Each structure stands twice: as structure tokens, then as C-alpha cells.
């Protein structure tokens, strides 16, 4: 009970800090705090494997990527700027939409039939208990094999996408464009005049 409320406060506070921070690096740190708190919450929900994943993947990989990009873009003369905050421009429609949505949600949740969380079927850390690595692994490689394979595909597409984007930026544009122009002119000449 008490741990839930503590974690909830940390989560909301760190989330607000994330979007309100004045420098990107502060946002990253706030987000790290958020993810860590979330991992703890997962443990209380018997999802120990996912708690670990949360730390390793999110905090260890994704957030490091963010930090890396910030560092990359901040190198050189000026530090990486935050950009304008445009809250005043759209606060009225945005605020109304968000508040109304939130109100509906909270109201709807409060109207739902309460269902208490049942106790787990074993101690945390034991094998074959709900949320354990073996339980998760058995499900992932049997029943959920196809979604698992699909994630592989998604990651593959992401890799290709990143390579394409990066390649495009790294390529030297000028001579390449000239070559293309010549090629297109030749093709048009063939189209226009024909070979027969």
C-alpha cells in the first residue's frame, strides 16, 4: 500500500520534471528516475523479469542513446538548445482536451467495479512462478512465438531505417546529383526520340 503511493508520487513527479526540464539532460535524468521507479513497481507486481528488462533496455540502452545524441548535438561551439516552449500558444484547446479527457478517465475508473489484486502463486524469485524468467520464457517461445518473430522483423526494419537515414546524411551530395542529371537527360532523350 505504502510503497505504491511512494512510487506513484515519484513517477508523477519525475514525469512532470521530464517534460518541464529546461535542459535536455535534465529530462533524461528525470526519465531515468521514472524508469527506475517503474521497475520497482513491476517487482511489486510480480513481474521481476520485466523489471530487469526495464532497467537494462530502457535505462541501459535507450536512455544512453538519448544522452549520446545530446552529447553529439551539443559538441562544437554552442550547447544544444532546448527550443521555445509553446505552451501559451495552444494552452486553451490543448488544456481543454487534456482536462476533459482526464476527467472522463478518472470518473470512469472510479465508477468501475473494484477488483483487488490477488496474491501470487509463489514467492518472488522462485522458478516457474508467475512472472519468473522461466514462466516468461516458456510463454515467449511457445504460445507467443509469432509475435516474438515479428519483433525481430520490426527491429530489422528499424536497423535498415537508421542506416538509410544515416547514409543519406553522410553521402556527399554534389557529384552524385550531377551524375543523376546526366542519366535522366539521356533517358528522356531516348523516350523522346526512340531507337527505331
Amino acid at each position: 500500500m505504502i510503497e505504491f503511493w511512494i512510487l506513484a508520487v515519484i513517477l508523477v513527479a519525475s514525469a512532470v520534471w521530464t517534460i518541464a526540464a529546461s535542459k535536455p539532460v535534465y529530462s533524461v535524468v528525470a526519465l531515468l528516475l521514472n524508469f527506475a521507479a517503474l521497475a520497482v513497481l513491476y517487482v511489486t507486481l510480480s513481474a521481476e523479469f520485466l523489471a530487469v528488462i526495464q532497467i537494462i533496455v530502457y535505462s541501459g540502452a535507450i536512455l544512453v542513446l538519448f544522452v549520446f545524441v545530446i552529447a553529439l548535438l551539443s559538441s562544437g561551439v554552442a550547447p544544444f538548445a532546448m527550443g521555445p516552449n509553446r505552451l501559451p500558444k495552444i494552452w486553451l484547446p490543448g488544456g481543454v482536451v487534456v482536462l476533459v479527457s482526464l476527467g472522463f478517465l478518472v470518473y470512469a475508473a472510479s465508477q468501475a467495479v473494484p477488483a483487488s489484486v490477488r496474491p501470487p502463486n509463489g514467492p518472488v524469485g522462485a522458478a516457474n512462478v508467475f512472472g519468473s524468467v522461466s514462466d516468461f520464457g516458456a510463454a515467449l517461445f511457445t504460445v507467443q512465438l509469432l509475435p516474438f518473430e515479428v519483433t525481430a522483423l520490426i527491429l530489422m526494419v528499424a536497423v535498415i531505417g537508421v542506416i538509410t537515414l544515416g547514409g543519406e546524411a553522410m553521402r556527399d551530395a554534389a557529384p552524385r546529383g550531377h551524375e543523376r542529371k546526366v542519366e535522366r537527360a539521356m533517358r528522356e532523350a531516348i523516350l523522346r526520340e526512340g531507337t527505331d
Partner: protein
Amino acid sequence: MALVPITILLPLVVGALLYALPRAPLDGVYPEPSRRARGDGWLARVIGVATAVATFAMLVAERDAQWSVRWLSRPFTAAFHFGATPVAFWIALLLALCTACAIATTRVARTRDFVALLLMLEGTMLGLFLARDLLVFALFWDLMLLPVFFGLLNWGEHPATAWRYFIYNFAGGLTLLLATAAFGVIYGSTDVIGRTGAPLVGAWAPWIFAGFAFAFLVKTPIWPLHTWMPPTYSGLPPPMVAVVSAVQSKAGLYGLLAIALPLLPNYVHQYALPLMVLAAVSLIYGAVVALVQNDAKRVVAYSSLSHLGLIVIAIASLNPLAIKGAIVYIVAHGLFSAALFMVLGYVEEREDTRSLLRLGGLGWKNPRLAGALCIAALAALGLPGLAGFVGELVILIGVYQAGYTWPVVVALIAIILASAYLIRLYQDVMNGPEVEDLPVRADLSWVEGLAVAPLLFALVALGVDPAPLLRL
């Protein structure tokens, strides 16, 4: 049995191969192509004619054969079911003949690509006419637009014409597809062409009929859906316009005959009068506009509008005799419009113009050309003894028998007008004093002669003895 799908696939595959094989680079431009490019064009034409003749032979050999593979089972059954109905058999023969004749005298820039396109046009239209399944019919309906679209885009006079052609006809294709889907869901199967089954009735049937009718009437075309046609016909190179006007314009009429009439007879009957009024308007409208056009190809284009209106009148009359006549006239119109466009194409190649105001007096130096144009024009104006007359006569007898007098009178007026504009066409090109600034080129070559001769011969033969067509 196995030849039926081959008949359809052969031109498609040969066309694709002709298109895909490597070609000589930019060496020589029409009308003075390099030897290599000329040889390439010759080879393509020989292969193209051989393919078209082969499809002709296969059609004759497998006249009654059918071939079927299951396609859909839900939400309705459909099959890749091919096989010629009696009417489709003749139109398919006409198609193979016209394609062979058109390819034989193709002389455009990039001949090989053009021949490839013509072959694909033949293949898609063979698929359309041999289809026994409505869904396959709708599929090929859209496919057959593509070769013409690319023909207009690459060889036409203006790209806007290509888009106009495509958008009009694709709109028709869309309503056809929607109607087909609705038909399939209600009827349970689309494998229905050429079968005797119960006609479709119910709340949706009028909408389905409307979808079919719109597609067919745009394609035919019928006033006021015709404005895509004159620019298309005058913009396309002659070999392709010969095939398009001869056969593709029959797709709509074939649809009316083979789909609307057997499956939705109630609605054809119910809407016979509006159909007939539109057709009669086309009949007169096309004729009077053709009277004053100065572009030779536009004269024939508007004459097609007029002539095809007559066939729609015949179908709308629902009289068996009129429908027999319509079948004869479908074939006859295919033959004479192909011949007209091809001969006018020869004229344009020789003189670099097709304006009736500039042409004149070619008959002295080109008697064979004049003869070919003359026979084609006479067939088009319904000279007794040629196939067009048989169609007109039998159609109008049937329509009159069905109790419609005014369409008959309108048609007779259109026949008189037809004689006026077709004679004008012939005379303005071939007769009169010889024009000084027109280049004098050789008369019809033997290839050109051989290419139009089958069409003209068929016109005479069917005019003397149309019994094979009338007894379907």
C-alpha cells in the same frame, strides 16, 4: 481445353518479352531509323503478327472449349473460368484479326515497344471476352485500359488525352467492380457469363444494373459520356486506334449482351426507353458532328458514336431479331472502323496531315489506297452488299417489329447523314484536283495491302452471306 488460357497468356507473355528484351541504344530516329533499329522493328512486327495469327488459330481450334480454376469461395464463389460464348467467339476472332493487321503496318517511334503494347492489349481484351466469370471480366476490364493509356501517354498527341481516357473509363471500371461485388454477394457466384440462370431481382438489383450500365455506356460510348472518345481516337497512333475502335468499344456492348441482358433482363426492359433515347441522341449527334469535322480521324470517331448508338438501340429493343442484327453489326463495325482508321493512318503517314481541308486528289496517284478507303467508307455508310448493311437492316427490322417506330426513323435519318459525311470524307481525301504541296509517295505497299485486305474481304463476305453470324 488447355489452349484457352494459352490463347490469353501468349500475347501477354510475348508482349512482355518484347518489352523486356534488351534493345539497341539511341541510334536513328523515325522516319530515318538506323538499320539496326529498323531490323529490330521488323522482327518485332513479324513476331507480333505471328502471335496474333496463332491466337486466331487457337480460337478457331478451341471454339467450344472451356477452362476453369477455382478462385474465391467466400463471400461468393468465383473462378478463373474462360471459354468463348458464341458472341464472344466472333469478337475475339475480330480482335485477333485486327491485331494482326494493325501490327503488320505499325510504323511509329520505338516500334518494338508499341508492338508489345498492342500484344498486351490483345491479351487483356481476349481475357475480357473469353471470361466466363464476372469478376474476371471486371479484372480484365481495368487491365485493358492500361495499354491504351500508355499508348496515349507515350505515342499520343497530348498527355491530357491519356488521363481523360483513363479517368472516364476507370470510373466505369469502378462502378463495374462495385456492381460485380454486390452481384456476387447477392447471387452467391460470379461464374455466370454464358450460363442460363435465374435473373437477379431484389432491392439492390437496380443499383447493380446502374453500375453495369454506367460502365458499359461509358465504354461504348453513348452520349453524353462520349467526350473522351474523339480526342482518344484522333490522338492514338493508327494501329492502336484501329484495335481500340474495332474491339475495345465493343466491350461495353458485349457486356450489355452477355451480362446485363441475361442476368438483369427486368431492368433492361424497365430502362429500355431512356437507353433508347440516349442511343438515338448519340445516333443523330454523332452524325451531325461528323458532318462538319475537318479532322479525318474525328469524322470516323464521331461516326462510331453514331453507329454504336444503333447497336444500343437494338439491344434496348429486346427483340431477338434486332439482337441478331446487333451481333452482325458489332462485327461489321469492327471491320470497317479498323479498316478506316488504318487507311487514314496510311494517308497521314504519306501526307503528314489528316485535315480534310488540306488533303485532296490523292486518288490519281494512289488508286489502291483510294479503293481501300472507298470500300471501308461504303461499308460504314451501309452500302447494300457489305456487312454494315446487313447489320443495319436486320437491327431496324427487329426494332420496328418490337413496336418502336421513332428510333427507326431517327436511324434512317442517321443513315442518310452517314452517307453524306463518309462520302465527304472519301472525296475530300481522294478526289478533287491534285493538291500542289502534298508530297507524292508510293501507293499502298504490299504489306499495307495485305493488312487491310482481310478486313475488306470479310466485309464483303459477311455482306453477301451473314448467315454464320445471324444463326448464333
